[in-house]
């Protein structure tokens, strides 16, 4: 929970160095109908110029709706969209300096590649010679030189993606909105294409707001990422922030894998110098672990530990917390494998390079500094 303050202070620092191109203030969208659904719930954030900002979250968390509100296709129930200092909440989509890369790409089948890329410029009344020049430039950026007179249905999936991106880039918009444009690709291709998106984004200096459900890919390329849950922001931060300091159980679980179990903590100095069995009593944590806890206070919380932070050891006197269990299953991932260990605290996933057999009795060692402490009541109510 301490990360909230962190976020605010880093945001202030950034504001001094970079220009804010897009600001979203208390955006709320309630869809009517038989049952009212709050798709977007009081969402506020800022996008800086030249930034690659991702919005991730499970399906139905309101990611696309936010993007469609920013583009002007969906009217927000409350809140405002400020683009380059101007409130555009009531501006129709064709008068907004944002461009969207659609989920199904939405390339115009009645135009060739050049016609698609030039479409936006033509609407702005850019003269033909200038248009052609810009199209050639864009074809170079997406490395499809000489493809200008190809028909859309003659292109491969990857080529279409790049044309769709060029169609956005050519207008040099304040923000390019990417609405899961790579969702149809398989994982490997999606990773390649995302890296390419990042490369083009860096080269052109454009600002990307990228919506995806693939958190791994998003974390790999984004400057900052917004984690969305049920239409509300759970956390905004760099990939490191999200991974190292998840603000909630949800973020911890969504961004990378995390073991979760309930346990008692007692606030002390933090570092334990002795070896303890985890089942023997409360864990001693530092006062910074959870907001609002006094020294000496005891509380039942949710503890999160990443699989690679757990070691399989012979029980020793080394300081740390120990837990015993039996190997339940093992999945190989090339170099290492993930072992599921049945313990008194439920099934714990451990990343290890050791080869183990099913049923093997093992001892797990936890280092207290790798514990993520979440308030059980407030975050999982």
């Amino acid at each position, binding site marked *: 929970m301490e990360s909230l303050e962190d976020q605010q202070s880093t945001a202030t620092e950034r504001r001094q160095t970079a220009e804010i191109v897009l600001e979203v203030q208390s955006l709320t969208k309630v869809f009517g109908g038989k049952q009212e659904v709050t798709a977007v719930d009081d969402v506020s954030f800022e996008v800086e110029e030249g930034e690659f900002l991702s919005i991730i979250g499970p399906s139905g968390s309101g990611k696309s709706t936010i993007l469609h509100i920013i583009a002007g*296709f969906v009217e927000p129930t409350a809140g405002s969209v400020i683009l380059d200092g101007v409130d555009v909440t009531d501006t129709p989509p*064709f*008068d907004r300096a944002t461009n*969207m890369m*659609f989920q199904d790409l*939405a390339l*115009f089948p009645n135009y060739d590649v050049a016609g698609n890329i030039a479409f936006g410029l033509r*609407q702005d009344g850019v003269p033909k010679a200038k248009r052609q020049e810009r199209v050639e430039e864009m074809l170079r950026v997406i490395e499809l030189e000489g493809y200008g007179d190809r028909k859309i249905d003659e292109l491969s999936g990857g080529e279409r993606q790049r044309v769709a991106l060029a169609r956005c880039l050519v207008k040099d918009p304040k923000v390019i909105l990417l609405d899961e444009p790579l969702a149809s690709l398989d994982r490997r291709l999606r990773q390649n294409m995302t890296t390419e998106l990042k490369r083009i984004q860096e080269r052109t200096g454009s600002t990307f707001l990228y919506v995806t459900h693939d958190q791994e890919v998003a974390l790999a390329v984004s400057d900052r990422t917004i984690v969305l849950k049920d239409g509300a922001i759970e956390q905004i931060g760099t990939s490191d922030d999200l991974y190292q300091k998840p603000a909630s159980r949800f973020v911890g679980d969504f961004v990378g894998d995390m073991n979760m179990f309930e346990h008692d903590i007692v606030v002390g100095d933090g570092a334990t110098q002795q070896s303890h069995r985890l089942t023997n009593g409360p864990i001693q944590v530092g006062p910074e672990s959870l907001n609002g806890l006094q020294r000496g206070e005891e509380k039942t919380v949710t503890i999160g530990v990443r699989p690679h932070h757990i070691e399989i050891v012979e029980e020793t006197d080394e300081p740390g917390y120990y837990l015993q269990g039996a190997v339940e299953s093992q999945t190989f991932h090339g170099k290492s494998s993930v072992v599921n260990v049945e313990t008194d605290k439920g099934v714990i996933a451990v990343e290890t390079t050791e080869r183990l057999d099913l049923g093997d009795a093992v001892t797990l060692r936890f280092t207290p500094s790798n514990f993520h402490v979440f308030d059980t009541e407030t975050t999982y109510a």
Partner: protein
Amino acid sequence: MSTALDTTQRIQRSVQTYSDEFLQAVRKRRWLKMGLFVGPSMAILVLFLVLPISYMFLISLSDAFPLGSLTLENYLKLIQTESYVRVIWRTSVLTVQTTILVVLFAYAIAYGMAMFAKRANLVLFFIILPFWVNYLVRNFSLLVIFLDGGAIHQLLRLVPVIELQPQLLFTRTAVLAGLVYSFLPVAILPMYASIARMDKSLIMAAKDLGADPIRTFLYVTLPNTKDGILVAILLSMIPTFGAFVTPAMLGGPNDRMIGQLIEYQFMRIYDVPFGSSLGVLTATFVFLVLVVSTRLGGIPLIEDDDE
């Protein structure tokens, strides 16, 4: 018992062998395979389309029925008689007018259905409903509506200022209205299909790239629903050119169309050769319309394999 079983088995086996051999033989001979697949439909086409039209063409070039000596007399009569030329011209004008009105109305209705209707299927049902009523009956109902003192006149009477009671029945307007009414549903269906099939995100993309609603329609919606429009044009143009019942029932003596002329030749004065030349004229018209529309690329006569 066992011998009976053996016999049936043996018969089955030999049938199996023969059919296998037959299939093998067919597979080896390409022309035979093609013939079996395409033959029946070709036979139907030749028997019921190519032969009759050829025969009609032959009669139109002869001076007597069933067959006389070859002459161009029928065609010369058609071109040189002023009243016939006028009928052809009138038919052409009415066909163009009908097609334009049908396409405009049908597109508007189809667009509304495809984009906004919550229960498009129900609307579609009501559009198809008139087809269940006989064509003649539908024209009779129009006749009653256009009648002096009919529905339209009664409606006009409700407007206090207007004392107008124009003659409606047996006018060109009535014929045009009747033709539009007849072919509107036929045109709505292909248009609805092509508008509904169009990817709606194309419209969003156009707006996103800066096109206002009118430009979006002209640059994106219209070109991407072109196929449906062309089919609708065909489906209203071809039957209108040969229309017979509607002008006969709703039009006056000055609103006669080619259809009535043909009927007159065959049913009243039995001039089969001249009637055939009129038939050839309408067939040529249909052929030309088809050629032009395929050239425009609108009618996918055969689906492309790679699509």
